């Protein structure tokens, strides 16, 4: 009896450890997915819609995407913000979107929208991790 209880506890701990790694990783790659795989369906969908819409709006407003760089501090911070969007950032780089267009007055808003989308996703990643380790329901 005691043996089976300890086996159950070990299995639960292993599951928590796996989820503590998997949830943040998948949450970064696909915004909201960290919540969805932990059965927080509505929260996950809302995060997915919010982050993705903000990022795509930024692209549609002709915002500029930052690439990895070692130059100006603002460019480095812009890259850190953008990279938070995970898969959206990777696809945007691969498709060579987000080149920015100075001709559009709102292009700078678009650039900021994409950075904020990435930063919001970082917060969502941390939240998914907290759910995985049981710190939050």
């Amino acid at each position, binding site marked *: 009896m005691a043996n089976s209880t300890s086996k159950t506890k070990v299995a639960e701990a292993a599951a928590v450890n796996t989820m503590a790694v998997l949830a943040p990783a998948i949450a970064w790659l696909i915004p909201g997915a960290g919540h969805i795989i932990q059965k927080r369906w509505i*929260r996950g969908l*809302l*995060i997915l819609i*919010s*982050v993705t*819409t*903000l990022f795509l*709006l930024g692209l*549609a*407003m*002709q915002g500029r995407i930052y690439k990895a760089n070692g130059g100006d501090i603002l460019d480095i911070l812009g890259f850190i913000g953008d990279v938070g969007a995970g898969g959206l950032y990777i696809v945007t780089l691969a498709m060579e979107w987000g080149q920015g267009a100075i001709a*559009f*007055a*709102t292009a700078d*808003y678009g650039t900021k*929208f994409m950075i*904020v*989308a990435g930063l*919001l996703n970082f*917060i*969502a990643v*941390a*939240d998914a991790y907290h759910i995985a380790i049981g710190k*939050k*329901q």
Partner: protein
Amino acid sequence: MTITLNHFSAAAVFALFASIVFGITHRDTTREMVRYGLYCFAMFLGGALVAGWVMWLLRR
């Protein structure tokens, strides 16, 4: 496709989505999430309006 938003609609869109994520990630219960999200939305938009009026006053 190019979308052009004016200052206020850009601020409103930003406030909406940022508030949703803030509400979900900063509170524990559904009720608290909704309340905090609404609070953040009001603060974002209210802050933008107040800042706008302050700039208008400074320009005069």
